[in-house]
C-alpha cells in the first residue's frame, strides 16, 4: 500500500517541521514552503510523524488507491 502526500502551501508557514522530520520526503520551494518530494510514497513512519507534527496541519495523507485519510496517531 502507498500514501498520497499533499502540502497546502496556503497554510504552510515554513516551520521546517516536516523537512526536519522526514528529510527524504519533504523539501522547500523558493518561498520556503514545504513540498512533498514525490506525491506518492510508501507507508513511512517519518512521513506520518511529519504530518502529525505540522503546527498548521498543512500536510494531508491519504491512501493512494482509495483516497481514504490515513490515521495520524
Amino acid at each position, binding site marked *: 500500500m502507498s500514501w498520497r502526500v499533499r502540502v497546502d502551501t496556503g*497554510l504552510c*508557514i*515554513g*516551520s*521546517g*517541521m516536516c*523537512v*526536519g*522530520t*522526514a*528529510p527524504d520526503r519533504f*523539501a*522547500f520551494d*523558493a*518561498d*520556503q514552503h514545504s513540498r512533498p518530494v514525490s506525491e506518492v510514497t510508501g507507508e513511512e*513512519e*517519518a512521513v506520518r*510523524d*511529519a504530518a*502529525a*507534527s*505540522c*503546527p*498548521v*496541519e498543512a500536510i494531508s495523507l491519504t491512501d493512494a488507491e482509495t483516497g481514504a485519510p490515513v490515521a*495520524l*496517531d
Partner: protein
Amino acid sequence: MVQTGGTRGPEVCPVASQPEAVKFPLPPSPVPYDTAPEMRALAGKCPVARVELPDGSAAWLITGFSEVREVLIDQRYSRALAYAPGRPRLGFDYLLAESLMGMDPPEHSRLRKLVAAAFTEKRMQALRPEVASIVDDLLDDMIAGPRPADLVRSFSLPLPSRVICSLLGVPPEDLDKFHGWSNTLFGDWSRTIEEMTEAYLGINGYMAELIARKRKEPADDLITVLIDARDSGDRLSEDELVRFCFGLLMAGHETTANQINMSFAALCHHPAELARLRADPSLIPAAVEELLRFVQIAGRGTIPPARITREEVCLGGVTIPAGEAVLPMMNIADRDPAAFPDPDRLDVLRAPKTHVAFGAGAHHCLGAQLARMELQEAFRGLLARLPGLRMAVPLSEIEFREGHVIASMRALPVTWDDT
C-alpha cells in the same frame, strides 16, 4: 542536504580572516531589545564563526539566517549528541537533557506528536476567545488599580500563565509556586545547586501528585490526554509523562511574557510604529511577526542549545568536522541583511514571511501558534483599552533577572491616560 534559500557564497565567509576564536558570550547589548554592536560586527564578517566558550571548549557560532535554518532543520546536526558521554554541558543544556529538546527524530517524533495536536493553529483559534477574555480581565484589574502599574506582574506574566494552566489543567492557585521554581531553575545566578535540586524535585513531586489526581478524576485538559496516551496506549513512560507536563508548564511562561515586555519597550522607542498600530489594529498580526523577528529575547550571556555535527559538513562555505558543537543564534539570524532588507529597522508593515524566532525543523517551538495568538490578543487589548500606554521609567532603569535564559524583566512600570 536541505535547501534553505541561502544567497551567500563561500567567498564571503573568511574563516582565514579569523585567526583566533572569538570569546563567547560577547558583551551584552546596551539597548536590551537590540543586537550588541560587537555581535553585529561579527555576524557581518563571519556568519559561521569559531568561538571559545567560558569553559574553554570550542564551538561554532552561527549567525547567518540561511545557515541557522540549515542547522535547525538538517538532521546532520544532532541535539541528542550534545548529551553524549564526555561532552561538556553548555549553558542551560543540562535542564533540557531529558526533554523533547534533547532528542532527535524519530525518538523525538514519538513524543512530539502526542502533544502537537493540542497546539495546532486550529486549536489555538478555538482558544482565542478564552485568551481575549483573560486579557480583558487582567486589563479590568489594571484600570481599577493604581498608576503606574507593573506590566510584568499585572499582565504579561499572568496572561501566558493562566492560559497554559487552563490548557494543561493545572489549578491557577498553584501558579505562584511555579514562578518560584521557574525562577530558581532558569534565572538568578545567586541560586545554589541545592536550591536548584530542591526546585526540580518540588516541580516533579507536584506534577506526580497532580497526575495521580487526574488519573482518578479525568478532565478535559492536556494532562488527561497525556495520561491516556500513557495508560491506554503505553506511548510514553511514567517519567516521560511527568517531565512532559513539567516542560510544557515551564516553557510558555517567561518566553511569551518577555516577548510582550520587550516588544512593548521596542514600540515605545519607535513611536511612529506604535502610532501606526494604534491607528490601525488590523496591523497587529503582522506587527507581532515583525516584533518576533526584531526584538532580542535571549538572556544576556545565554549559550543557545548546541547541535553536534554527525559528520563533516560544509556550512556557509566553512567546513566543520564531525563531532563539533554548533550554536545557532536565532535572534541574530533574524537581523541578517541577506534575509531581511534593512534588518535593524523596526517596520510593523514588513510582515516577514519566515523568521526563526520560534526556531525551525523538528524542534520548531511547540507553542508557536499559541504564542502568536497570545501576543496578538495582548497587543489588541493593551492598545485598545489603555490609551496612551507608555513606559513610566526609562528603559535604562529596567532590571533584568541575572543569568536568566530569557531576557526577563523584573518589573516594567507603565502608565496611561484616563480611560
